């Protein structure tokens, strides 16, 4: 089926999210939609899927104009969508999820689960998905849940499949499998719209690439285009991929973590015998699939989990057992994983957010009262230094874009002399420009002699920043490897294999993305 958009426009108030977009998706093609966060990709897909009414333009299916009142219409017309955040009911089985909303029923109105199971098995077998129709969705790994979403779409006879940032949650090996599935679907005639901001994946799988910037189509490219070309088109100026950084000059050991163990309230180990150290002037990246103890590790260092046992020594001084205040005062800068929850107060002004952990000391406080003039001066200084895009330092945190919010958090944490800097997911959800900036600041902090810990689930980011990489799996550190370890080995370690086995396994099979690394114009790994 051919999908065509002509001049599609979508506005939210004064903000134009999609500005007369023209797009043709040919049958049996993987069409990548490339653009930064906030470029309008998801909005466009929601228009196609009937979730938003376009303010202008038309949508044509096989040259016939269509008008979708809701996702139901879109699905009936043969469009399926896999959202970035899965729309599955965790306590239902795969079969129950797949039929949700389209339940096959017998004469008495009772759901025919046998029919549902048959459907799931059929599709699963056809594409080698290896999904058990009776498995509970909550028990499945993320990659498998995504395949359930795809089955859901296919079971409704989707001829056009929209995948919204499908690789954001996957390990490299799972991404590899997904790319295989996408190719298979394409070969069987399904058109795929692949939304992403990751250049490497686009080059690996797309037949055609359309770049969107600020709600407009700014060009199309073939998969043979270089990553730098694509990135420049996406951002609208030339960008340097990867981080320019000189080799680390690690000095004395700054942070020594020994045998750190943390149990959850019901006795499940969240951290188990975690030991590592970080030297002054070195970046240790902690890699791993989300939810393998990274969050708990950083929070424990910060002092959020007083029940942890073991030892955390910063320049010889024990941190464990100290209050958060005490840890911060020992010279620890902390960028939390979820900036809107833990990093920033949305209803506070930028000024007030800048002083969140320094509000009670000079120069921001004089005795019992705040020194508003000093706070404003400092805020304006940081806004300039960190290039925070805002009208005024009085603007609320909630009025900033994600990238600018993160710059505020970073500016706050880097504005005092640090011994140790911890940043969790420092660039999650940010645009290329902000990522570039933040990576530079992190490397600068390292060169300043600070010990740096970066927690990231994005291998691109890990590879771009790390001097050494610690891989976490199920609350343990499965191995600490050099910063230039291959993506394949890291991916396998993230799935729980120790280094030796991972290396042996990786030699047998090179993933598509790792192969892309080899002949990329940017071998260290652009964090895009």
């Amino acid at each position, binding site marked *: 089926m051919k999908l065509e958009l002509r001049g599609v426009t979508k506005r939210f108030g004064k903000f134009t999210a999609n500005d007369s977009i023209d797009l043709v998706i040919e049958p049996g093609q993987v069409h990548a939609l490339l653009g930064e966060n906030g470029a309008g990709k998801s909005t466009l897909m929601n228009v196609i899927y009937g*979730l938003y009414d376009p303010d202008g333009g038309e949508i044509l299916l096989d040259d016939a104009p269509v008008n979708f009142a809701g996702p139901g219409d879109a699905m009936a017309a043969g469009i399926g969508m896999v959202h970035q955040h899965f729309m599955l009911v965790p306590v239902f089985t795969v079969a129950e999820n797949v039929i949700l909303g389209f339940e096959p029923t017998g004469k008495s109105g009772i759901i025919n689960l046998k029919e549902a199971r048959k459907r799931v098995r059929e599709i699963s077998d056809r594409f080698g998905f290896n999904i058990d129709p009776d498995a509970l969705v909550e028990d499945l790994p993320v990659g498998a849940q995504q395949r359930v979403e795809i089955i859901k779409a296919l079971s409704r006879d989707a001829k056009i499949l929209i995948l919204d940032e499908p690789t954001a949650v996957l390990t490299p090996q799972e991404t590899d499998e997904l790319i295989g599935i996408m190719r298979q679907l394409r070969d069987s005639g399904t058109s795929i719209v692949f939304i992403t901001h990751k250049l490497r994946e686009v080059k690996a799988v797309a037949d055609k690439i359309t770049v969107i910037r600020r709600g407009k189509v700014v060009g199309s490219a073939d998969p043979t285009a270089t990553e730098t070309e694509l990135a420049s088109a996406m951002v609208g100026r030339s960008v340097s991929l990867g981080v320019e950084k000189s080799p680390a000059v690690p000095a004395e050991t700054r942070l020594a973590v020994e045998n750190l163990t943390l149990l959850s309230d019901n006795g499940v180990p969240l951290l188990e015998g975690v030991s590592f150290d970080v030297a002054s002037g070195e970046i240790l990246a902690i890699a791993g699939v989300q939810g393998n103890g990274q969050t708990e590790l950083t929070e424990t260092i910060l002092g959020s989990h007083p029940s942890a046992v073991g030892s955390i020594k910063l320049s010889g001084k024990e941190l464990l057992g100290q209050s958060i205040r005490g840890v911060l005062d020992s010279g620890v800068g902390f960028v939390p994983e979820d900036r809107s929850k833990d990093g920033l107060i949305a209803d506070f002004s930028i000024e007030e957010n800048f002083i969140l952990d320094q509000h009670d000391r000079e120069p921001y406080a004089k005795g019992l009262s705040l020194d508003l003039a000093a706070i404003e001066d400092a805020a304006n200084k940081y806004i300039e230094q960190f290039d925070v895009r805002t009208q005024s330092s009085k603007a609320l945190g*909630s009025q900033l874009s994600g990238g600018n919010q993160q710059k505020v958090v970073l500016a706050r944490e880097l504005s005092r002399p640090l011994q140790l800097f911890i940043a969790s997911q420092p660039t999650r959800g940010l645009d290329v420009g902000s990522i570039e900036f933040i990576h530079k600041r992190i490397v600068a902090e390292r060169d300043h002699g600070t010990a740096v810990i970066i927690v990231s689930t994005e291998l691109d980011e890990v590879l771009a920043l790390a001097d050494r990489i610690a891989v976490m799996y199920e609350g343990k550190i499965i191995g600490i490897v050099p910063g230039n370890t291959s993506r394949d080995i890291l991916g396998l370690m993230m799935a729980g294999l120790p280094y030796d086995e991972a290396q042996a396994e990786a030699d047998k099979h090179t993933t598509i993305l790792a192969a892309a690394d080899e002949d990329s114009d940017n071998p260290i790994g652009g964090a895009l």
Partner: protein
Amino acid sequence: MSVSSEHAPAPEAKAPEKGAAPSRWTTALRDMASSSATVIIFAILGALILAAVLIAAADPTVQKTAGYIFARPADFFKAVWDSVSGAYSALFRGAIYNPDAATFARKIKPITETLTAATPLIFAGLGLGIGFRSGIFNIGAQGQVVLGAVVSAYFGFAFNLPVVLHLIVAIIGGFLAGGLWAGIAGFLKARFGANEVIVTIMLNSIAGFLMSYLLTTTAFMRPGSNNPVSQRVADTAMFPKLLGQDFRLHWGFVLALLAAVAVWWLMERSVLGYRFRAVGFNPDAARTAGIKVERMYLYVMLVAGGLAGMGGVSQTLGTEGVLQEGVAGSIGFDAITVALLGRSRPAGIVGAAILFGALRAGSPLMQTDSNTPIDIVQVVQALVVLLIAAPPLVRAIFRLPVPLKEVAA
């Protein structure tokens, strides 16, 4: 289709998703406390209009003329006009200025009565406002008022101290009593995570019955009396009258205004107030930044309860001079309305308290002059709250998305 509800109509450039979603009630209450000035003015006007309908409906002449409304509609409308204008003009004469009175002092007495009635509401409203802005929904102002009244009265009649000192001691006693009473809820929340709404409601009942009990003990009862009325507070512990003995208005009102300024400084300019607000808006971020959130909850309750206790102090040491059942009236509950109406800001709270003081001061004259039941004032107060609450309450109950307020910078 289930997916559609997941997509609030917001451009993807905006929408920094909230962390742990606060409960619907917390959200509704916060929305109420921060509703816009237009909503509030609209709510007051709306309440007065709706109350006018009730006033007319309760009026016997209106009821009679309604019987032959189609024969002589003019009678009916005249009766409606008479009843409503009569009631509201009586309210005005009772609350602000009475041009019919004989002397100038009597002419302006109503406004001083309004300010007298507003005084405890200002104190208690300020306390509640601090709580609301710090993420604590303290329903317990009533109990805190009672404790403030009990202790200040006791200090007032049981001690024998020089003039100024006695008043100060009694005031401090009332402040601490209210603060510690609220501190119980603060401590339970900080230490065990007990819900402050439930704890403070329960503490209200306990405080009420505690006072009833104390009034039967010899420590409080007047010698030779069996009535549940305490001994008189010594003159040395009473607030001096502000405008001479002809008026009940006392220096407690000035103290209330000073308290409003102090609260403004606390919340807007002080380190402690910064922490209060940080904890109120986002306890997770505050904790991550090293603020001891639980300790702040306790401090908030101590300060808020102390201010509510001052509401009781201004009753016993300002207007009543004795401790008796009903000394706290419904001050603690009206103060919730006052704080919401004043958007938890000191200036707004003073304004709202004076409005409520006026309703209270004017209602007796309204009843005697125009036969309008005094309860109508309660109805007006309730309608104000209802109308302020309606938009967010409806949103909260039906889980509708919050309207897009500002576009991303």
